[in-house]
């Protein structure tokens, strides 16, 4: 019983952090209407729904339905999360020719699960969507000194690892992952970690010239 309560409380913290992160991104999206932010809001929504289904599972209220041979409810959210990770990586990189790659691959992964309960496609797709977006986003984040993209890369890696770990340790790592993402989206990283020295100097010069 204590285990269940602990898990539910911790998963509740994950949802709380997800909402905070979503709120921060929504604020940015409202001001610039950027499509990447809109995609991130949907992505975060799927993460939150994933957490809710996990709470249901802990409480023994999980909806148990299977389409075909082995396409279950967590596969739906898994594929959507994986697909979105790829989608906004290609979108940020502006690789237009790869925009439909996640959609095509998701269809094959889902077909494999429906027809044969073939899990290896799902695992391979999940691994690819963890390491490729991580590497690409990390590079963009450091190159452009963009805190959101940098922390998103770290989040994808940490969250990808956490989803493969069952039990309390997995949930704690996911909380850490959500804290990382929140730190990125709330502007904390831009302000204190990835400081653009040239930009700072330019602002200082403007400020000094104004005083003069």
């Amino acid at each position, binding site marked *: 019983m204590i285990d269940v309560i602990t898990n539910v409380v911790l998963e509740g913290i994950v949802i709380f952090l997800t909402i905070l992160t979503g709120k921060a991104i929504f604020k940015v999206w409202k001001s610039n209407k950027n499509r990447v932010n809109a995609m991130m809001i949907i992505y975060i929504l799927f993460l939150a729904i994933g957490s809710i289904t996990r709470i249901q599972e802990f409480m023994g209220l999980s909806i148990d339905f299977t389409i075909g041979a082995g396409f279950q409810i967590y596969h739906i959210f898994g594929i959507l999360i994986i697909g979105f990770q790829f989608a906004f990586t290609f979108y940020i990189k502006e690789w237009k020719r790869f925009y439909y790659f996640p959609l095509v691959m998701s269809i094959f992964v889902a077909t*494999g699960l429906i027809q044969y309960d073939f899990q290896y496609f799902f695992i391979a797709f999940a691994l690819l969507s963890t390491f490729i977006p991580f590497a690409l986003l990390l590079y963009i984040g450091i190159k452009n000194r963009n805190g959101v993209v940098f922390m998103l890369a770290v989040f994808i890696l940490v969250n990808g690892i956490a989803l493969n770990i069952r039990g309390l340790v997995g949930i704690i790592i996911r909380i850490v992952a959500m804290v990382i993402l929140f730190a990125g989206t709330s502007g904390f990283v831009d302000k204190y970690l990835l400081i653009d020295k040239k930009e700072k100097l330019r602002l200082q010069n403007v400020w000094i010239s104004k005083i003069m």
Partner: protein
Amino acid sequence: MSFEEFRALLGITNNYLEAILMPIMTILIFIKLRREKRETGEINYVRAIIGVVFACFSWMLIWEFLYNRTPVQMLFTENIVTFSETSWSFYNIGLSLTVAFGLVIVMYINRRESLYYVPLFVVGGMWLYYIATGYYEMMMYFIYIGALMAILFLIYTGFRYKDNGSLGMAIFFLLAVSVLLIDGPIGTFMNSSYIIFGVIFSLGVFKPFKEVVKE
């Protein structure tokens, strides 16, 4: 000479002509591409894709020829080499890529940049799916539906942009696909017709639209 004997002879001639002329046509297209690159300094991607389509087609025909006319049949079974509706073969690899690049050319001419590689992703996915699960029927749907779509869109694109390349590819595809669907004497004559058309097309003689309209 009876009609059946004539048909058999035409079939054998077609086999030889396909295996010899198709690679020559492919080389001709790539020579033209290279010459154009040297003159203008830019790659003509439409011609390059047409070249790839012809290369895939040559691959198919060479395997078919090797199986029918050489001792290759002692090394491989028919299913591995020639056209098969139930399993993968060397022929089918070329066929699926031909259809995929046929669709790529449609996307390229219509400037749908986000869709350029989609047919290739689909074919790649199907290959992996077949290797993993052994399920093949999906590929046949792709080949037939994809070929039909490619033909229709190439005709549409050809008339819309008055593009000789698109229209030529559409006619070439139409004749080539009809060979797969039609058996008997008509199939044999269709086979000869697409070889003849392929020669006309690759030599650059097929120019129904004299003026190229640019949008």
